[in-house]
């Protein structure tokens, strides 16, 4: 949208029909949409900064518009807020603020220059990429609330951040890695240039003084490359030695270290040859390989990190004596919080007042806003879109869905797949073997041609470095994991990709997995006329409060429920409890002890009984997920055997199986029976993927080779599934299967390449056919090929 005649000059929103407000900017009458925008525009004009309007890019409508309700910034001046959000440096106070609505460099300019005009403000720096503003001021001249208020008055509502929010560890890691990479690459280019001179001198003759000069200059440039850029290799080799597990960095360090020391010695004593070019090239390619691998690893974190940064840092808590703004870290379960339209929800909770639509896209991948009204759960990090909501906090901080997702992906990041551990162990034996081979080669050459012994040994060490072998698997798994998380599949177990690739059958739970898991009561038949339909609904609702089974949702009532004692959940069967001294049971026909109704309905039937006497039965129906049929068809097309395991009655399961084209189904299974079916299939050599609810099917999931569970907010924290489906769609399953197969193919290609390369290169180098610089190129190219091959996975469709 452009700023035309019918849109606000300041915020670019359409101007309401009955609004005739204008303001004069640069001598021209400009229309504005509200008194707030008029005030902001005039403030900017009066401060002499109206060139902002000429410099800015096309504004996003609504950006910069002052909020209708003014926030009371004074609350931020309390000692407790100041200690939470600011730091004292020297005599100054420093704070980091998140500033929304910054969309171009003119915005940064406006914000920075407005702040710098405040008395006592020493520095204001805005990073338009991260939307973070660092501001430093003298507390004697200005208060925190003045700084915040000033920002708000020009239409950018700030959000104070707690100290370390920008310094994410992976960001610091990337910064250091970039610096090392640059030192290595610039150093390599320079040394290479001098090396051309030295090599040319070897052929055409060179002034002895000039040769010495070129060597000294090479030494000067190589020193930072070895001491700074290659430091991680030395550190890791030392760690490996101390732990008595020599890693691939040990031969690297020995090669780099001895070549450098020998070259320095040759430079000082005017020896026959220097290897500075080989050293820098080796370090550069190794650093490049590690950098690419690090990027693949970080990409999978980015999404969750982006999620956590969505959490607001303050919340408006309401209590008997009005509302106060508090840091989110002070919220506890039970607090009531108000969320304005456009704000992020600070914690998990339940809506207690108001109705609005909420954007949960980043948590679930569901693009359409979700309608939320009283009683509905809301998740931290999602955005309240249109109206004021009041919620009661149920979970805060790391207990929230958001926190759990971050924790689970963390777990996946640190869990090393068995495959990788194996490769590491093999690599460490290999390293010892290679060091022995190098020693033998050195000894033989020393006897045959002592003047070439050092050079040949160096080549052997460099060329046989098992880097490619050690990188082959982790790089592929990291790339696959990050691509899967983009597809809303969170891999929490490092072995999942491998076991998914080897799967032969998929077994599905029905409720909440193939179906939406939002069941509705479609019929209620009262068998005992002494109860009304409403009585039955009330009792059922009261009993089901204890159950986390997806079907329980269908029975939910907002009315006052009777109190239940001795509430007991029989997983997969039903719930029981005592109300007014009588024992009620709700669940399958067998569980409630009632004879079946004789009605062979194809829907799920839930029976209600009191003291073993049937009172009523409910018909509950749960719609299939829209893409279930297509997903199952494509899984079948890949040659996978599909089966449906459900605790539901035969007719209901048969109906779903028929609708989805699954031939094999087992109805009325308890979790133990499901497990037995899986174990029977496993003993026939099948490898099972179980897709089911994380809670009710926990033992079944644990028994399968790979377990996949859909993420249901409340139960997410307890799930132990290997893969979690964050979205509402089943389609990523097909991609996951295809992708895991592709991952294993790439791992095999990588391993084959690494082994073939090493077996070919070792004898050549040992016989003295490979000069050190060629060895450096060969070894590095082989590692790069492996990493680049793995990175193909991050583009997998």
């Amino acid at each position, binding site marked *: *949208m*452009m*700023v*035309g005649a019918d849109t606000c000059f300041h915020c*670019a929103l359409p101007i309401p029909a009955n609004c005739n407000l204008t303001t004069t900017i640069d001598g021209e009458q400009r229309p504005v949409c509200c008194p707030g925008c008029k005030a902001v525009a005039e403030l900017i004009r009066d401060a002499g900064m109206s060139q902002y*309007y000429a410099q*800015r*890019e*096309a*504004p996003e409508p609504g950006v910069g518009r002052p909020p209708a309700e003014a926030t009371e910034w004074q609350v931020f001046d309390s000692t407790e807020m100041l200690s939470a959000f600011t730091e004292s440096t020297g005599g100054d106070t420093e704070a980091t603020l998140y500033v929304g609505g910054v969309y*171009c460099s003119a915005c940064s300019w406006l914000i920075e220059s407005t702040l710098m005009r405040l008395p006592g403000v020493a520095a204001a720096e805005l*990073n338009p*990429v*991260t939307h973070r503003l660092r501001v430093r001021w003298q507390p004697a001249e200005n208060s925190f609330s003045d700084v915040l208020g000033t920002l708000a008055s020009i239409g950018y509502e700030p959000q104070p951040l707690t100290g370390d929010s*920008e310094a994410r560890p992976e*960001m610091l890691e*990337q*910064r250091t890695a*970039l*610096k090392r990479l*640059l*030192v290595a690459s*610039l150093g390599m280019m*320079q040394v290479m240039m*001098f090396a051309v001179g030295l090599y040319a001198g070897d052929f055409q003759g060179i*002034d002895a003084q*000039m040769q010495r*000069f070129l060597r000294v*200059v090479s030494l*000067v*440039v190589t020193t930072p490359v070895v001491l700074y850029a290659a430091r991680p290799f030395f550190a890791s080799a030392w760690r490996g030695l101390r732990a008595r597990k020599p890693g691939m960095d040990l031969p690297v360090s020995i090669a780099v270290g001895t070549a450098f020391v020998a070259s320095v010695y040759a430079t000082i004593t005017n020896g026959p040859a220097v290897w500075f070019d080989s050293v820098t090239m080796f370090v550069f390619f190794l650093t490049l390989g590690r950098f690419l691998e690090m*990027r693949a690893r970080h990409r999978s974190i980015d999404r969750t990190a982006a999620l956590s940064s969505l959490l607001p840092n303050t919340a408006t808590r309401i209590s008997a004596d009005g509302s106060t703004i508090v840091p989110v870290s002070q919220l506890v379960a039970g607090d009531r919080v108000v969320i304005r339209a456009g704000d992020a929800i600070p914690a998990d909770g339940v809506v207690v007042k108001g109705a609005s639509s909420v954007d949960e896209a980043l948590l679930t991948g569901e693009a359409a806003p979700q309608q939320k009204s009283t009683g509905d759960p809301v998740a931290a990090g999602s955005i309240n879109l249109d109206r004021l909501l009041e919620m009661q906090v149920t979970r805060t901080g790391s207990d929230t869905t958001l926190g759990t997702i971050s924790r689970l992906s963390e777990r996946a990041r640190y869990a090393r797949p068995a495959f990788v551990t194996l490769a590491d162990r093999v690599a460490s034996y290999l390293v010892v073997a290679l060091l022995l081979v190098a020693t033998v080669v050195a000894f033989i050459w020393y006897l045959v041609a002592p003047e070439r012994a050092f050079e040949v040994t160096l080549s052997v060490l460099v060329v046989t470095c098992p880097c490619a072998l050690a990188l082959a698997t982790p790089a592929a798994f990291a790339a696959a994991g990050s691509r899967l998380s983009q597809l809303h599949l969170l891999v929490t177990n490092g072995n999942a990709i491998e076991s998914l690739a080897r799967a032969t059958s998929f077994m599905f739970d029905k409720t909440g997995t193939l179906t939406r898991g939002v069941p509705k009561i479609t019929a209620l038949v009262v068998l005992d006329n002494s109860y009304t339909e409403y009585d039955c609904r009330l009792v059922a609702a009261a009993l089901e409060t204890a159950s986390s089974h997806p079907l329980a949702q269908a029975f939910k009532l907002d009315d006052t429920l009777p109190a239940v004692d001795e509430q007991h959940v029989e997983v997969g069967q039903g719930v029981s409890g005592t109300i007014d001294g009588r024992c009620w049971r709700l669940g399958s026909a067998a569980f409630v002890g009632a004879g079946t109704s004789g009605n062979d309905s194809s829907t799920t039937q839930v029976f209600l009984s009191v003291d073993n006497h049937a009172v009523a039965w409910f018909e509950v129906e749960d719609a299939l997920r829209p893409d279930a049929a297509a997903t199952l068809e494509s899984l079948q097309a890949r040659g996978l055997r599909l089966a449906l395991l459900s605790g539901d009655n035969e007719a209901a399961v048969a109906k779903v199986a028929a609708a989805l084209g699954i031939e094999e189904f087992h109805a009325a299974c308890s979790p133990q029976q499901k497990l037995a079916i899986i174990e029977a299939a496993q003993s026939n050599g099948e490898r099972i993927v179980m897709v089911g609810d994380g809670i009710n099917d926990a033992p079944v999931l644990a028994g399968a080779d790979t377990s996949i569970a859909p993420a249901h907010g409340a139960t997410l924290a307890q799930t132990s599934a290997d893969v979690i489906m964050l979205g509402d769609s089943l389609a990523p399953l097909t991609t996951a299967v295809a992708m895991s197969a592709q991952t294993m193919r790439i791992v095999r290609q990588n391993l084959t390449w690494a082994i073939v390369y090493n077996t070919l290169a070792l004898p050549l180098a040992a016989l003295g056919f490979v000069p050190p610089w060629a060895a450096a190129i060969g070894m590095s190219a082989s590692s790069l090929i492996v990493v680049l091959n793995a990175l193909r996975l991050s583009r997998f469709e």
Partner: protein
Amino acid sequence: MSILYVLIPLALLLLGGAVWAFFWAVSSGQFDDLDTPAVRIIMDDDQKPGDGNET
């Protein structure tokens, strides 16, 4: 050839300057986002406000 004795140290000084500038740029966060700049070029952002074209 003796000019090399001047030119090479000069080149090294420039190199040092370049490394220093890059370190400064990295530390000030200019390289924190390595992905968006690559796609920014294909985003439409060259419309100036007030040129009257409704898009």
